């Protein structure tokens, strides 16, 4: 059987409850040789397997250089993620991966980077933000815009605070609905784009979140002079094999599991935001 379809056993090292519905699992292969061999790029994902339940694709949020654990941030929304949420340190599960094409690290090298994310704990964007912050000198100015529906949904407040302290780094937050004590913008992420303190015509732009939000953001950036080739998006669809075979993740002619999940805007602009694609 194709080895790429068979999981490897891993152990839960850490479990962190990030919000009522979001948790992170730090995992390590049981076979230490696999830990040494395994490498990935930010934006790639693993298939996580829970015994007797099944598999689910999950982005890797830890740093590629971090060797003690592979961290996956997961929202408890379905059958397998519900089962993953019950795992405790010491429990065993399966991993296979990494899969897909991650963020355009080479293109972003020594460039300004704008990251716009929406939704709860958008893991693919966290992976690239963490990556950049750990190698801050390799990038130019960095602006991060994070939007949530309700201000109470915002997780990792301390991380945003830390990122804000970094040189040449701007963090802007938005909530559609603000609770008590919210000092940030109330409204959409697109309304924050004019505040971005970098030259968007030269920056590498990375988007992650609901498709409508990414489309609105991309269109506004394009009308402000950004080029379609500078804009990158992390897409999601049902994935079951993660190897381009099962057909579920087809997005137009692309297989998100192998041609993505990160796509250049110019390659998917014909489809983005259209319903039922």
């Amino acid at each position, binding site marked *: 059987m194709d080895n790429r379809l068979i999981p490897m056993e891993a152990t839960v090292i850490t479990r962190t409850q990030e919000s009522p519905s979001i948790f992170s699992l730090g995992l390590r292969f049981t076979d230490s040789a696999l830990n040494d061999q395994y490498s990935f790029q930010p934006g790639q994902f693993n298939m996580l397997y829970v*015994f007797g339940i099944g598999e689910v694709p999950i982005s890797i949020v830890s740093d590629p250089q971090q060797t003690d654990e592979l961290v996956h941030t997961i929202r408890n*929304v379905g059958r397998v993620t519900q089962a993953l949420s019950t795992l405790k340190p010491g429990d065993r599960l399966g991993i296979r991966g990494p899969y897909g094409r991650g963020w355009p690290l080479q293109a972003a090298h020594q460039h300004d980077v704008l990251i716009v994310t929406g939704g709860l704990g958008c893991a693919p964007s966290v992976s690239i933000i963490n990556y950049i912050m750990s190698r801050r000198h390799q990038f130019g100015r960095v602006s991060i815009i994070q939007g949530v529906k309700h201000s109470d949904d915002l997780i990792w407040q301390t991380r945003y605070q830390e990122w804000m302290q970094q040189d040449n780094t701007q963090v802007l937050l938005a909530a559609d609905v603000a609770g008590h004590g919210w000092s940030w913008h109330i409204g959409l992420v697109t309304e924050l784009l004019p505040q971005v303190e970098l030259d968007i015509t030269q920056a590498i732009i990375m988007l992650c979140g609901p498709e409508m939000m990414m489309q609105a953001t991309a269109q506004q950036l394009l009308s402000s002079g950004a080029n379609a080739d500078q804009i990158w998006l992390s897409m999601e669809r049902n994935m079951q094999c993660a190897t381009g*075979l*099962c057909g579920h993740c087809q997005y*137009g002619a692309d297989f998100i599991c192998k041609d993505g999940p990160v796509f250049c805007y110019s390659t998917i602009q014909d489809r983005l935001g259209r319903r039922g694609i």
Partner: protein
Amino acid sequence: MTHTGFLPRDHFDKLFDALQSIGAECIGPVVSAGTIAYQPLSSSTQFPHGVHDEQAPGSYRLTSTTDARWFSWANGAQAIKPLVFAPLETLWRSERDQQGKLCFVAHQENPALTAIIGVRACDLAALALQDQHFLNEHSYDEAYARRRQQLILIAVNCTHPAATCFCHSTGDGPQASSHFDILLDELDDGFAVTTASTMGEKIIQAMTLELETLQPAQLDEINRANRQAGEQQSRHLPAVDLQQLLSTMQESSRWQDIAQRCLSCGNCTSVCPSCFCHSHQEAPAADGLSSTHSRQWDSCFTHGHSYIHGQVIRKDTHQRYRQWLTHKFSGWFQQYGRSGCVGCGRCISWCPVGIDVTEELHAMVNEAQHG
């Protein structure tokens, strides 16, 4: 390709003997449950004798005739696809011990050498498409590959296309041009034989019979029959750039019109010889100590196909039909360099409400041209 010789009908079983002598199991067309199905067989007596088929949108019937030929019919619901891309198969098993430690066990089958007798040009073309999908360098499927490597393909040129067939317009038939080991052309008293591979030659050499020399008159009859089989086909795809057409018709009201008729049952994808979608499934054993991970054919017409964290991307039937048709006639070009349709017409015959993919494409051309 030149004909190797002529095999008299009375001696056809020498071919079965030769296949058995090289250790091959034989699969071929038989009448089963009112249709032509590909099943294990060991003698020409099991072929359909005196059988024709009548196919129309939403209709498939076998009829009896006095025709003494064995291959005077167009394809039934399935042919090669289930024999290489299994409808349901185990991928691996996981075992959990008392300490919760997991062990993953690969499931590997070792398929027998298998000769399929009587495959048609449309299904050979579809097999080539499936090969592109399952055996490309990025997505190489071992289970598919193992079965594929064990296949011996003995084609029979189709001289009786159904009313639903349009392989002539897709360029995939009715004459087989590649991907077979042996090609047969049926005549009243026997078969013209063409070998196209080392395996094909090996099989003919293993026969305890010298093939006769094919006569010019026989050759003329074969050429005439093959030409007529193409000319008989009344259905055809629109002679336009389908990728271009579909790119402009994504918001057409025709999709809603089709959705008024389409049951979203997935029959078309089940019988389509190129459809490759499959779902992964998990079946834990009752004792809680092991679990089986398998895959099963899936369809883009199901609710679950586009399910993702609490939402369904293609909730409506018109979106699912659009997905299927657009993938088949546009997406395949970008994925594998050609259309995913080989003109076998199965999706027309086996659609319970008789939706005709060629008619829908013509309607879209008409709408694109005249609004």
